[in-house]
């Protein structure tokens, strides 16, 4: 074994970190003020176009885990789940009105016309506030 290769294992290069950024979709696949479901390396997520950028959320409502692909309504930068009318600011994920939990978000960026998502591990909602 060469010295170079063991050094590479001991201190990961920036290249390895970049491996966690994954292409989710082309930027033009999601119209402004809407969202779509994509699977990225087996992780399902919603990509939302919030006008000046993109956001990535887990695919379900934090309340009853309804699939937002079916139950989500995007209008004026606000996401509503039509099951119990929980709402969130699409940019910040902060709850509005009757919603009790924020949306979880993956980090996103745009590069070469693609939307990239930083996935360290799959984000999941806690069932209730007693889980932690």
């Amino acid at each position, binding site marked *: 074994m060469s010295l170079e290769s063991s050094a590479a294992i001991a201190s990961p290069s920036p290249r390895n970190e970049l491996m966690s950024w994954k292409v989710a979709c082309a930027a033009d696949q999601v119209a402004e003020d809407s969202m779509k479901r994509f699977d990225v390396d087996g992780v399902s997520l919603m990509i939302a176009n919030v006008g000046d950028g993109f956001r990535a959320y887990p695919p379900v409502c934090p*309340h*009853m885990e309804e699939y937002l692909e079916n139950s989500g309504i995007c*209008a004026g930068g606000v996401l*509503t789940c039509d099951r119990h009318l929980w709402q969130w600011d699409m940019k910040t994920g902060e709850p509005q*009105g009757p919603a009790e939990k924020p949306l979880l978000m993956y980090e996103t960026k745009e590069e070469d016309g693609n939307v990239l998502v930083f996935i360290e591990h799959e984000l999941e909602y806690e*069932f*209730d506030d007693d889980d932690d």
Partner: protein
Amino acid sequence: MKVEIEKKDQHFSFVAQPGEKFLYAGLRAGVPLPYECATGTCGTCRARLKGGEINTGWKDAPGKSTLKADRQEFLLCQAYADDEKEMNSGRCTLGVPSAIKAFRDDDITPAYFQGEIQNWSRLTGDVAQFDVLVDSTVEFHAGQFFVLDTPGIDGYRAYSMVNYAPETNRLTFIVKNKPGGAFSEWAFHSARLQSTTSDRIALFGPLGRATFHPDEGQDLFMVAGGSGIAGLLSILRHAADSGHLEKNKAELYFGVRTADDVFFVSELNAIKDQFPNNVELNIVFSDQQQLSDPAPELGGMVPKFGFVHEQALANIEPGATNTMVYLAGPPPMVDALIRPLIIEAKVPVSKIRYDKFG
């Protein structure tokens, strides 16, 4: 069994009797558990078992479709403790995914009642009305429902009250004859509609948050599909009796299939006659394009044709800020309305109240 719910800043406990549904046990103890249909269909009262043993009840409840069985999830409206072992083990601990909080300060704590079914009358070919004369006085808000447990039929069925009085011992309901609907078959395929005998019935309530409160000062925009008119008529009656309609408007879209399916014409017109300038009644026929001769006597009701949700959406004023929207009917009708109400009519979600039932 003692049932305990632990949340970060809240701790609730209540006692469920053998066979008693946890949802009903909690609600009657004043714990405002989350629920919608209270009868196994909607899945809103989802919970997770964290300790103890329970019977999760009706295996094929439609509301169980989103539950994770491997994570000990169940519906509060179906689960109970039944046998000696479960009762004697003393307690169970649950988690629920929503806040446990009251809807309004004047929420009415539900309870069990007994009563007699009386005054059967047929309203159309497949809709009948009946009263339950309750053994004691009950309170409810207009738009609420009770669950009824008829002898010989397993499980509770939900029915909205048609009448309104702040305190009464008479509750009026309607039932639609549905093939395979246990209660409606019991009601329709027997001599009940002709008989003068009365049946004893157990009931639990009042339940439901699609309620009307004059103090909210709102105009009313209402969409009913078929027997969904029940709760909305209760609301209109309370709005009329309380004088709410002197200052506020009410606009109703009542969807039926054909002229043979129209009912409550005189009851609805009586409200319009009291407040002719503030009440607008539309009746929407889905299965016929015009009224045949002889047309049904609709009084002040305006006939329209098509789907009730489309007629309602075509006529709602976008961006109205002083209007409460009430939706009552089959889930497909309610679901077809919510999205366009939010996107196109720009109705804030705080101004939408709905009652879905299958």
